[in-house]
């Protein structure tokens, strides 16, 4: 019998445990002709605010050892255009839809959640309280357990949709933030967002990014992310979605064994659009080889 690679948690069903990470898969349709969407369980769309945003000036990206820096600054179309122009196609695609939302104030998060609550085809809200590249809000909420709880609670009051706060690695103790959003009513947690980082062109003596600092993603952050998923999964009773530098089924399994119920892939999808099929096939073969009937049975299975 084929192993069951679907996962269900937080009142959500994902046909595979692989989710496209926010900001790396546009509004869902961009890769239709080159990626195998059957292998994708969920799509987290680009972070959305109430209003469209221009984003940071370029240069916005730079490659670093086994990773990349980005300071996009949440250039996005605003919630209204997203619902009118992007949702109609997104809801037809098949993967479970997570809408990543961002605000400068608690009230903005609240209003976004209120609007999304009644939008057909939106399955969950991913609360972006961890973007390093915006001036107000973003990471400030994610680094302060009290603020993180306040945003979660405020959004909870506006929607019945599952709420998934996305945490920043830029904290001393990730479990403190994780516990506080759990207590505030989060249904699951996703982590990690990018790590604040910087690179300098020594010839011109200028930062590589116009924004000076940016967020580090890719394999370079994976061991940090695995550690944080491990600590978080032990500290809370809600499911955890693991993110950070996943390039293959082995990488995905590290997160799952560390305690993740599903994983997200970001940067690697830029490098290899076939990462979805390749990783899913690898997971299936692994399950068969290890006599595992359902991938969900591996969650938290690391031995100690």
């Amino acid at each position, binding site marked *: 019998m084929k192993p069951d690679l679907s996962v269900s948690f937080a009142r959500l069903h994902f046909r595979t445990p692989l989710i496209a990470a926010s*900001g*790396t*898969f*546009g509004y869902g349709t*961009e*890769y239709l*002709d*080159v990626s195998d969407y059957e292998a994708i369980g969920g799509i987290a769309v680009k972070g959305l605010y109430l209003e469209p945003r*221009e*984003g940071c*000036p*370029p*240069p*916005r*990206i*730079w*490659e670093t*050892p*086994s*990773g*990349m820096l*980005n300071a*996009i600054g949440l*250039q996005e179309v605003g919630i209204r255009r997203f619902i009118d122009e992007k949702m109609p196609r997104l809801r037809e695609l098949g993967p479970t839809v997570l809408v990543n939302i961002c605000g400068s104030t608690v009230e903005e998060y609240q209003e976004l959640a209120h609007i999304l609550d009644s939008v057909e085809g939106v399955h969950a809200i991913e609360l972006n309280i961890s973007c390093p590249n915006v001036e107000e809000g973003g990471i400030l909420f994610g680094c302060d357990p009290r603020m993180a709880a306040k945003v979660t609670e405020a959004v909870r009051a506006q929607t019945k949709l599952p709420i998934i706060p996305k945490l920043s690695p830029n904290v001393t103790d990730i479990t403190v933030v994780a516990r506080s959003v759990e207590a505030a009513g989060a249904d699951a947690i996703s982590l990690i967002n990018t790590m604040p980082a910087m690179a300098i*062109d020594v010839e*011109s003596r*200028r930062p590589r990014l*116009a924004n000076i600092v940016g967020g580090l993603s*890719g*394999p370079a952050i994976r061991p940090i992310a695995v550690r944080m998923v491990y600590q978080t999964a032990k500290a809370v009773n809600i499911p955890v979605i693991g993110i950070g530098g996943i390039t293959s089924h082995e990488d995905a399994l590290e997160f799952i064994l560390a305690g993740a119920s599903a994983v997200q892939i970001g*940067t690697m*999808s*830029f*490098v*290899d*659009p*076939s990462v979805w099929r390749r990783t899913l096939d690898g997971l299936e073969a692994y399950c068969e080889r290890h006599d595992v009937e359902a991938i969900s049975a591996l969650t938290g299975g690391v031995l100690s």
Partner: protein
Amino acid sequence: MRRDVRAKLLERRSLSPDASLLEFESDFLANELRPGQFTMLRLPGDEGLLLRRPYSFCDTDVAASRFSLLVKEVGRGTRALARLVPGDEVDCLGPLGSTFTMPPEGKRPVVVAGGVGIAPFVGFCRALSSASKVAVVLLGGRTSYDLYLREVFEALGMDVRCTTEDGSVGTRGRVTALLDDALDAETQLYSCGPTPMLLKVAELAKAKGIPHEVSLERRMGCGMGCCLGCVVYTSEYVRSCTEGPVFDASVIAWDRDPHPL
């Protein structure tokens, strides 16, 4: 329709101390790509690189299922690419981006290219040649080494004029010095190369009211419109991988474009 195809290197020709012409085999890309478009290329093994690198298509030979890239070594990715030997394979995602448009009836095409910026114009001039059109091709470089492939443009029947900064070939100076003579009300301009050159060309074209298409090079993360890393300012930030790389130069807000690569 775009695809990620594995293409085999058939031939590599060194054009200068730091530039090579690479001929690859791919039926799909040879057939699908149009002048001005590019591919996101991934090297075999990882060579310590993560992201793919963008390269314009230089030329295609549909009958032989071949396409070529002109590569100038500037960093790790381009150096590794230039070290490939025939038989090696690379992954090419494409064709990506916008295309140059053929000049409307009655318009005379003028091409301005600096350094490796001539790459996309080989295929474009081949298309012009097939349509029995002759472009004035203005090539500029620091020295004779930088005037890649000018014999190819000549063989295509183009009117080639060269400048070098050291005067080793053609007129001494910058390529933009030849522009004034080549332009009139019936001109349609096309340009690709270093930003200061593009800026000059754009200023001249604007002053004279001449239509001008420009191919821009920006750092790219995905080439698919998803990372928003490659933006150029028009009246907002637009993606140069999907809306470009070929733009109508008059829509670009050049003063908002700092362009350090």
